[in-house]
Each structure stands twice: as C-alpha cells, then as structure tokens.
C-alpha cells in the first residue's frame, strides 16, 4: 500500500553568520493513512524542524537549504510551489502546538478564529454554518457550552480549554495528517493526559494519521502505533511501539529510557553527555512482533 507521508533522505542546512550548519543528516520517515506515529528525541534533535518541513513552512525561509523528498499523498512538498503547498495546510494537514494559549491569537475571538479555519476549505461558507460546525466540533472535544467559548478570547479560557479548542480547530476540516508538536507540554500533567486521550479518540474516529512529536516517552508509549527515535538529526531506531519499548536496541534509545525517573525511587539515572555508541547506525525493528 502507498503511504500517506513518505520522507526520503531529508537533509536540512541552515545558513548562519558562521557558515553552513547541517541540522538534519538525511532522515527517512513513513506514515500510512490513519496511522499514529511518534517522533521521539531530545530538544535540538531536529524533530520540530521536521514538522515544519512537512508543512512546507521552512521551505519559505531563505536561510534554509532542504534536499531529499517529502511525499505527501503522492506529491513532493519540497518541489511544490509555495502557493500549492499553502493550499494543503489547514485542509489536508494541520498542526497542534505546544502552548495552546499563546498559539491562539489574543485579540480575535475563538469564534472568529474558528470561522477562518473552516473557510480554509470553503471560503464562501456562511457565518451561521461556520458557527454550527464549530459548535459541533467543540461538543466533540467535550466542551458543552460552546456558544460561550466561541464568544470568548483565549485569555478568558483555561489552558486545558484552549487545548481542546485547538484540537477541535485542527480536526475541523478532517485533515489526512495531523502534526502534534509536544501537544500540551505547557499544561498540567493531568490536563495533558485528558486532552491527549480526547485527541486519540477523535483521530481514531476520523481516521486521521498523526505524527506526534515528543520527548515524553510515557505519552509516546500510550499514544503511538509506531515510533521513530531521532538523535542529532539522524533516525537511530524505529519500529512498532511495543517492540521498541520491549527491546530497545540502540544505545541512545536505551539511555533515553533509562533517563526517565521512576516513581519507585531508584534515583536519577546516569546518562552520558555524549557517547560514540549514540552515533551507531540505525536499527529498524521488523513490523511483526
């Protein structure tokens, strides 16, 4: 079967005052329709820029040099015209950001922002229909008093509420792919868990494929079907979630898992700053476990 997203040998260079810096050294990622995939790594490993390349945002930056192929639905985003690429954003793919409250515009009401999102698919959509669809979407993310929320500004709502709004907006146009960059990291752990559960139920219902970007192994294990581990711009290990968690083979993945503090009180793990073993070649678990 052909995959929804197929990234092959993706490289990213940034031009800085000091010269060229290579951020991604040729990564391959594959996501099938409706599949939930996680990209795990520490901050600075290149996971967030990957999401922005998939959206076609980084391509517009003049300092960025990108090579390789990013096939979305059979078309290469890297060679697409910026205008055509913009047509995919907000319709065929959408994104959820880290901090919901600062990702919603502070001076525009939730209702107006929702309308703008819905009109990405059909810009002649009547206001009444937009309101109706927005209300239905908000009900889907367990917001009962949708009318009040639509008339509110983001600062009037709690972080968890804004996160639900953002999930509703992201899924409103039934995208094929949802990019979730550290969703809810800025929220309380309990609120983050609630909203993640909600998001998982919805993407299952809508058959939306997800690329979850996270450094939180607990979240990844609960959410994803398959996992890619990224370290310093390289994929070091990938495979089905259960296989990878049961038997991490790459030294970096092992270190990452040891670094998670356990609630049983065995103390903080010792993780080396750098290790030659972290740079070992990629290990791929077979798809059958």
């Amino acid at each position, binding site marked *: 079967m052909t995959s929804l997203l197929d990234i092959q040998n993706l490289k990213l260079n940034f031009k800085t005052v000091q010269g060229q810096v290579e951020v991604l050294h040729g990564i391959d990622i594959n996501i099938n329709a409706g599949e939930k995939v996680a990209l795990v790594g520490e901050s600075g490993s290149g996971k967030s820029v990957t999401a922005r390349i998939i959206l076609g*945002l980084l391509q517009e930056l003049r300092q960025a040099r990108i090579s390789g192929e990013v096939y979305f639905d059979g078309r290469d985003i890297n060679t697409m015209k910026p205008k055509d690429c913009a047509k995919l954003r907000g319709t065929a793919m959408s994104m959820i950001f880290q901090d919901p409250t600062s990702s919603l515009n502070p001076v525009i009401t939730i209702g107006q922002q929702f309308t703008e999102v819905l009109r990405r698919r059909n810009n002649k959509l009547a206001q009444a229909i937009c309101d109706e669809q927005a209300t239905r979407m908000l009900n889907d993310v367990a917001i009962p008093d949708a009318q009040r929320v639509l008339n509110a500004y983001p*600062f009037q709502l709690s972080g968890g509420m804004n996160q639900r709004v953002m999930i509703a907006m992201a899924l409103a146009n039934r995208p094929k792919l949802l990019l979730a960059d550290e969703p809810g990291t800025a929220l309380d752990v309990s609120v983050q868990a609630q909203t993640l559960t909600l998001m998982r139920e919805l993407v299952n219902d809508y058959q939306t494929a997800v690329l979850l970007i996270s450094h939180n192994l607990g979240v990844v294990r609960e959410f994803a079907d398959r996992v890619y581990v990224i370290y310093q711009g390289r994929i070091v290990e990938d495979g089905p979630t259960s296989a990878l968690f049961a038997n991490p083979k790459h030294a970096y993945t092992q270190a990452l898992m040891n670094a998670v503090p356990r609630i049983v009180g065995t103390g903080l793990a010792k993780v080396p700053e750098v290790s030659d073993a972290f740079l070992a070649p990629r290990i791929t678990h077979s798809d059958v476990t």
Partner: protein
Amino acid sequence: MSAVIRLLLRRLGISVIVLIGVSMLIFAIARVIPGDPARIALGPNAKAEQIASLRAQMHLDESLPVQYGHFLADLSRGDLGISLYTNRPVTKDIAQFLPATLELVFCAGIIMIMLGLPLGILAARYRGRWPDHLIRVLSLVTVSAPGFVWAVILMLLFAFYLPLFPIAGRLNDSFDIARVTGFLTIDTLLAGDFAAFTDALHHLVLPAIALSLSGIGQAARLTRANMVETYNKPYIEMAQAYGFFPSRIARIYAFKPSLIPSLTIIGLDFAAMLGNAFLVEAVFAWPGLSRYGVAVILRKDLNAIMGTVLIIAITFLIVNIIVDLLIAFLNPRIRHSARGSA
C-alpha cells in the same frame, strides 16, 4: 462597558492632576525668570506709573503663591487675561486662531495614519526583503528633517515649479463663507458652497502633507517594529500552519495585536504635530495659532504665551485620553476585565 468608563474616569482624574502641574510649570516659566514681566511687556520707554499700574493689575506685587492663586482662580473662570498685543481677552484670540491649527493637525494626523500604518504593515510583511529596505530608508528620510524643510521643498516643487496647489492661505478671497466652527472644510459645507469646500481642501493638501511627513515615517517604523516582534509569536506560526494568505496574516493576525502598543506613540506623534504646526504654518502663511504665538512671543506678551501653551497642553491631554480609550476598546483584555476569566 463599565471597565471602559472606570478607565475614563481614572484618566480624567490623572489628567486634572497633570493639568495642575502644567499650570504650575507654565506659571513658573512665566514668573520665575529674571526680569519684571510688566517692564518687559511695556518696553524700555515705559513710565514708572504705567509699570506700577500694570504690576498691580497682574498681581505682581504679591507673593508667588498668591499670584499663582490668582492665576488658578482666573483660569477656573475660563479667564486667561488680556493679551497685551491684541488688547483682547486671550481666550477670544485663541478661539479665533485655534480652529485653523486644529484643522491642519487633524488632516495631517489622518494622512499619517492612512499612509504610515499600511507602509509599516508592508515592510513587516516583506521584512528583510527589498520593500522593507525601501520603506525603511524612505521613512528614515522623512523623519530626518523638520516640518519647515518639507514645507519649503513641497512648496517649491508643487506650488511653484508644478503649480498644482496654492502657495499660501486657507481659502481663496473670492469665497465669502460664514465662520461657524472655524473649520473651513466644515463651514463651507454648512454654507452649501461645494466650490469653496474643494478650494479649502486644495489649500490644505501641501501644509498637511508637510506636517505629516515625519509622522508617516515614525508611524511606519513603529508599526513595522511592533509587527516584526509579533511575527515571532506562536499564534503567527499557527496561522501559517493553517495556510492563511500571507497578506491576510499581515493585515489581521500580526497587525491587530501590534496596533495596541503602537497607538500610544502614534497619539504622541499626533500631539507633537501641534508644535510642528508652528513651523509649517509659518511657511504657508496659515492663519493659525502659530502666527499669533510667534507674534506674542516676540512681544513678550506673558498672558497670551501662557494661554497658548495651556490650550495646547489641554488639547494634548484630550488626544491622549482618546487614544487610551481607543486602546481599551481595541484590547479585549481591558474591555472584558470586568467579566473576569472563565
């Protein structure tokens, strides 16, 4: 709405305090300087009894606090004293000359906003690329010369070499318009004389542009700077991730939040035009407060000087209150502060 009314009352309260301070400052400038105001006003050839009677009339023989008390008491009755230059009440003089200045400043302010904000938006939208560089250099040029230099250059180019606009004045002498508001653009319309209205506008163009040029540059630079900062906010990235048109992101998502911090400064620029109007009015022989102000200053007419400065300070404070209310209206955080968070 009650939050906005509370804000209005607070601002009015602060303005009254500031206004009292301004009256003290003006009083201090007028009285604490060396020299006898009466002698200065009457000139070196005045007789001793003339000076004595004027001193008594101006309460100059009493202590400074008492003098200030008299000044305040007169002020509260709307009495700014008699101008030694025109021999009329200063309030009458100001009422005659202020509307011309306000009309000019108001037009210049509109031009500043209509051109300055869109140029700033354009520069921010194409930040780092050639439209940005072009607008940056142009706006830097416009803020680099005082109003009278622009007035002279515009007059030379568009009144003499290309005689598109009149050289001086507010209205052609052939029109006889009853002065109701003192704003000729309004008075001509009230008189139903459309030809006179066009003529009044025609006279306004060059002085208003000369007065607004540095404001345009200032507004464009400020809008650009605030918007570039806004462009780094997560909600802009979110708007980009949703594929909104870049021009729409610029006009709505980035401009709206940036407008609020810009407005205070734009209000200050607007008010600064009250001072700069002195320069432009002089070049275009605009019969406003400037001609009067310079005349009374050269004659050391203290009552008129104090009155003129006070009126300008009051206008300035009113502009600031309007700007603050506008900010409160545009900023949902202030507008909805009464309702609290959900």
